[in-house]
Every structure is written in C-alpha cells, then in structure tokens.
C-alpha cells in the first residue's frame, strides 16, 4: 500500500491507463467541479475538497466520508474541468479502494447479491412477467436469469476477481454473511 495518490494511479491505471489517473495532480482547486455538481447542490459532496484530501493522503477521512457515495457519476465536472482532471474516473477509483477496505454499505453490497443470484442488478419477478405479456413479449427474456449455465459464467468472474469475498457473500445461503454485524458499517 502506497500513498492514496499512488494507489489511485495503480488501481485505476490498470483499467484507464496511468496517465488518465495522474491528471489528479493537475488539480488547481479552482472549484469548477463543485460549482457544476448537481449533487453538491443538495448534499455535502465537494469534489474539489475530495481531490485535495486525496492529494494530501487523508485516506481514512476520505474513505469514511459519506459524501464519497453521493456522486451520481454524471460526468459534468469531467467535461468542464479546465485542467483535464479525469474527475469521475478518479472518484470511481477512490470508491473502489474504499470498498476493498470494507467501506461499502449493505444496500450497495446487496446489488452484488442480486447479480450473483440472477445475473441482473434488477431481476424479474412474476408481476413483471405479466407486464411483458401485456405488451406481447415472451414472459421471460433470454438472459442469465433464464439460463443457469450462462449465469455460472458471471459467477465465475465474481469468484475470480474476489468480488464475492469483498461483499462477504455466502455461497451456501446465496446471501450476505453476517448482515447484522456489518449493518451499520459504511
């Protein structure tokens, strides 16, 4: 584990390229991100502040800040940043690092449970099958929820990358482990 900046460059860099992540260093604290932010209008999210916290290595503070999760990834600041800081991808990377260290809410972990069980973050149920029939479609679409062997491929990905362990997934119960203990943890 290096500094938070180094970890951001290493983790995000594997996907987006290191140069993309190194744009964080270009931030001049002008605040155009915060001024453009539809979340910041209503929440405590201050993107400029998050980036300064990241640059001065306030790792625990940033991982424990609830507002880290109030970015909707709208990319408004990404497009408007006069220094070309790849803001949204940096925020997503900081969230990845926070999640790896256990800072992930139960509702967010539950989205992974739905995908591990059905392949879908929003699975289909009996009522929705009727909606499909009402517009002349087959009651169930031909996706992972219908074909077990296809779902198993998605499950294999989650096992390989360790996403199942990251959310404390219990393969026997097909649910989260120890929800009562983790319930209050962000």
């Amino acid at each position, binding site marked *: 584990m290096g500094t938070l900046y180094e970890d951001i460059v290493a983790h*995000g860099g594997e996907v987006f390229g290191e140069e993309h992540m190194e744009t964080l260093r270009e931030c001049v604290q002008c605040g155009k991100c915060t001024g453009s932010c539809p979340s910041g209008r209503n929440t405590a999210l201050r993107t400029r502040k998050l980036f300064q916290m990241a640059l001065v290595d306030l790792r625990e503070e940033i991982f424990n800040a609830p507002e880290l999760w109030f970015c909707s990834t709208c990319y408004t600041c990404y497009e408007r940043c006069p220094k070309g800081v790849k803001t949204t991808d940096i925020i997503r990377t900081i969230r990845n690092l926070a999640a790896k260290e256990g800072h992930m809410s139960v509702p967010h972990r539950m989205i992974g449970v739905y995908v591990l069980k059905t392949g879908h973050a929003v699975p289909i149920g009996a009522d929705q099958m009727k*909606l499909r029939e009402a517009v002349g479609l087959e009651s169930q679409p031909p996706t992972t929820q219908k074909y077990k062997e296809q779902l198993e491929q998605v499950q294999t990905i989650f096992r390989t990358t360790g996403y199942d362990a990251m959310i404390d997934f219990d393969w026997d119960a097909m649910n989260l482990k120890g929800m009562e203990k983790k319930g209050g943890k962000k």
Partner: protein
Amino acid sequence: MTEESKTYAYFLGCITPNRYPGIEAGTKKILKEFGIETKEMMGASCCPAPGVFGSFDMHTWLPVAARNLTIAEEMDLEIVVTCNGCYGSLQEADHLLKEHPKLREKTNEILGKFGREFKGTTEVHHSIVVLHDVIGLDRLKEQIKKPMNDVNVAVHYGCHFLKPREVRGHGSSETPYILEDLMKVTGAKTPEYKDKLMCCGAGGGNRTADSVQSLEWMRQKLVSAIEAGCDCMVHPCAFCHLQLDRGQAEMEQAFGVFFNFPILFATQFLGLAMGLSQKELGLDNQTTTMPDKLLK
C-alpha cells in the same frame, strides 16, 4: 455503420426487460417499421451498471461487460441498447479493450475460463442514434400519423448518453441536439428549461445510497420542466425512466406530493406519434399516466 447492417443484437439489460418492457416492445416495433430487425442476446447479463459496479470494483465490472460484448461478437452483429447505463458500460468497455492490449489480454484470461474471448469485432450503438442517423429524420417524418404540434416536451438526455464525450462521440454535452431533432419530427416543441442538462439523480449508486436526497434532486428537475410549461419528459434511458416514473410514486411517499408528470422513453413518444396505442407501448402500465393531449 453500413447501410446494409439492418439487424442488430439487442442488449436488453435489466430495467428495460424486467421493469419497463413497453420500452422493449415499442423500440422493436418502430425499428421493424423501418426494416431493422433486432435479435436478443442469449445469456446476456446486467451490463453491469457503470456508476455502480464501476464504483465498487472496476476489475469485475470490465470482464462482465466484456462477456456481454462477446455474445454479440459471436452473433456477428453490432449492438443496440435502450438504456444509458448499458450504453455507458458496454461502449466504454469496448473502447477500453480496443485501446489497451494488456487490459484485453488480462480480461481474456478471465473469459477463457468459460471459453469466451473478446475479439473487438462489434460496436455499441444507442437506439436513438439508430433512429436519428441510420433511419434518418426524413423517413421518420413520413411515418408520423398523429402530429404532436401542441405538445411541449422537456427533453432529458441523462448522463452517459453524452458523456464522456471522448468515448460517446456525440459532440457537445452542453448543446446536444439529437433528442430535439427527434421530437421536432413529430411537430412537438422542446422548450429550454433550467435543469435540462441535469442528471436524474439515480446514478452512481446514489438512488440506493440515499433515496430521499436522490428524489429531491429529481424533484428539482421536474419542477423546472413544469415551470417552463412542458407537458411531459422524453428521454433515452431505461434507468432514468425508473427514477423519473417510479420515483414520482416514491416522491409522493417521501414529500407528500404527486406530480403525475408524464415520463416517456423516446421510442414510446415516437410510437404514439406513429399511431401505436399506449397499451402496445406499456404506457398504461406505469406510475405516471398519459394526458389526452398525447393520446388523441
């Protein structure tokens, strides 16, 4: 995209088929009207959501998206989508894997465990771009049977249709035009409104993390559209549809006010103008109801 490519692999995602199948049915019908076939992608999963899985673990997000891309590659077809989230994930993953050979190698190691390989032979298109650029405004106009001349439409782009521009390639994210063009074909007007370019509030796990603030954000957007004299909101994203439509019922619970401001996916609005019934388009089966003005 060539003139001859008249069949697309339809990536359904989650919300289109599992919550708002009227979007699926309407899009298929309209494309078919213009000679474009759509084939389902057998065994496709969640895209997975770019702001959600991309926020939790991008090293899981990418291979799941890549796996979906390989299904279309095997069909030898380009992809069409009806959700900005699906567009966001699949187009971005396709772009990254085509740009970065090492990343492709690492991703293919995972996909190889079940005999798949990303080859980089497909492209990802949004259905409204197919309408605008492949079918074209002139041909669309010929099929308008019920002009929407007296209707004011609040266009809502959502976020991942336009941004990041370097991946999407639809020009300026501050002065977009595709939805306006599609609405004008029907005779409808598209007034400017204060929060036109603002996010619906749902993305990035925001709706899940704190639904009340996510709804407040949406409330502001709807109020600004209503204040500008708009009759309905039209958008290109199934996930925005969930937030903007179902969210109005949740807003009633949270704030005690029900706007009943009509929400339509772009092909649902075009479908009405082309003479399809609201039942065929699933518009009789959602939270917000359609006014006579749109159904006449």
